[in-house]
């Protein structure tokens, strides 16, 4: 390398990157657009079908159901995540003994694979033998058909996902809370503000950026939902937990509809980008 001319050095250094991006990012994006106009089972030659895939997508009830399932997941997951994470972060953000211990235990599910967490929760959510229903029975609350009812199963998965991820968001909120200047609280104290008023009018506005970040991260995470319903319910009961990524996977690797599956992926990706862009815009205003 010493002998090469100085001007070439940067190009030698970035060439592997450019090659990699070309093969694994740029080509796939272009190829996915080509695929959306074709019907292909990966073995016989590709067949041009014009806009058929898009027309099919618009009428594909199962795809829209999978989108709706994902939205239902997010509607429970995001608010729950924010409330629990913010509350626990607020409790931790003070002169707390054993803070490191609490933080470490909240964070434990974050580092473990979703595969482990799902297998674990499958047992916890069991109707008869599950720990959660046993605790409910102990408090004389009727048992909940967590995974058996199509009206409940997706929310049960949202509950589990919150349990798994909330530790990360607690840390992010703690970082956010520490950026609020102490003077603001002191000023509020002079005004005789209550604890809740301080939280509502000082803390909340100051950590808005963190809340936004949590919303975006959980949205992207929710749109990627796959392994949890795949293991927990295989999309059931009655397709009520079929996520969009699961449906894309099914179209590609069970039915070998590569063209259609790529169309779903393409459409879904645009949708994700649009949702995140709207969220960004909303926050800027």
């Amino acid at each position, binding site marked *: 390398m010493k002998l090469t001319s100085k001007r070439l050095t940067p190009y030698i*250094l970035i060439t592997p990157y*450019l090659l990699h991006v070309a093969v694994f990012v740029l080509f796939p994006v272009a190829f996915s657009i080509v695929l959306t106009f074709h019907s292909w089972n990966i073995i016989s030659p590709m067949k041009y079908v014009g806009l058929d895939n898009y027309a099919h997508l618009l009428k594909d009830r199962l795809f829209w159901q999978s989108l709706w399932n994902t939205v239902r997941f997010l509607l429970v997951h995001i608010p729950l995540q924010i409330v629990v994470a913010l509350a626990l972060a607020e409790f931790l953000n003070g002169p707390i003994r054993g803070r490191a211990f609490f933080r470490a235990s909240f964070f434990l599910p974050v580092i473990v694979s979703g595969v482990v967490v799902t297998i674990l929760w499958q*047992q916890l959510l069991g109707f008869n033998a599950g720990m959660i229903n046993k605790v409910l029975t102990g408090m004389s609350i009727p048992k909940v058909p967590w995974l058996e009812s199509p009206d409940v199963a997706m929310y049960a998965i949202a509950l589990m996902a919150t349990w798994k991820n909330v530790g990360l968001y607690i840390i992010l909120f703690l970082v956010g809370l520490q950026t609020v200047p102490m003077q603001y609280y002191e000023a509020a104290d002079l005004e005789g503000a209550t604890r809740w008023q301080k939280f509502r009018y000082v803390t909340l506005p100051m950590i808005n950026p963190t809340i936004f970040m949590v919303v975006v991260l959980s949205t992207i995470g929710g749109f990627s939902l796959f392994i949890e319903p795949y293991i927990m319910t295989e999309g059931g009961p009655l397709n009520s937990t079929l996520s969009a990524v699961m449906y894309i996977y099914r179209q590609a690797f069970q039915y070998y509809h590569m063209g259609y599956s790529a169309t779903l992926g393409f459409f879904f990706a645009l949708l994700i980008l649009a949702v995140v862009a709207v969220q960004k815009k909303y926050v800027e205003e």
Partner: protein
Amino acid sequence: MIRKIAVYLLLTLAALSFLYPFVWMVSASLSSEAGIGSLRLLPVEFTWQNYLTVFDRIPLGRAFLNSVIVVTITTSLVLVLGALVGYALARLEFKGKQLVFFLIIFTMTLPFQITLIPNYITMVRLGWVDTYLALIVPFVMNSFAILLFRQAFMGLPQALIDAARMDGAGELRIIFQILVPNVLPTVVTITILTFMGLWNDALWPLIVIRNEQTMTMPQLVTLFSVGGRADAQLGVKIAAAVMLAVPVILLYLFFQKHFIRSMASSGLKD
């Protein structure tokens, strides 16, 4: 005072709700099938049978080895390649730098759902299905790692590089012997993030690996759990899950602070 007690009570309750299920999981995996329904923290009718059954039915040892090989090679390459590109972006001037930044941001923004199917087809075309290559090569370049290295390198004094140049060091020696040792926290962060992402991911392996001997651990445990081979025996499924969790939890016990700091930084990237 009352508030203080309430806060500690709530925190303890929360901590229990995160820890207890893990303890229960280990205890259940060591219990007889009849004893699993118990909420107790100690195994009921202690037995190793669930673990023996797992090893009897699936090549979990092999899958562990596969995961270790794939994760080690990929993480090393992410570090080496990330340092090279990060150095070029941080310390060298060249035409097209803006294009590289654009590509990095583009890659990081792009939802994976769009590249999933085409990348699978690329693997088929290259004949990489059922090989380590399919698990390694797509992940050796990591945009976030590049950005982290760039940022870290920018914080180092130019004098460090100039002195090395005077001694006749080439660019590679400057990068790996002078700069990288000075940004070890960044190296740790990238290592943890890459390791975690690869060790825990099941979706991509499910797509490109069909041969049981090449499967990674999360993939094999997933298929074992959804397939019929666990024979609906809960204890056996749970034992497989415990073995998937143990390596990460052990590392977490030792490097807890690094784990938390690294993962938080990945959340803060936007």
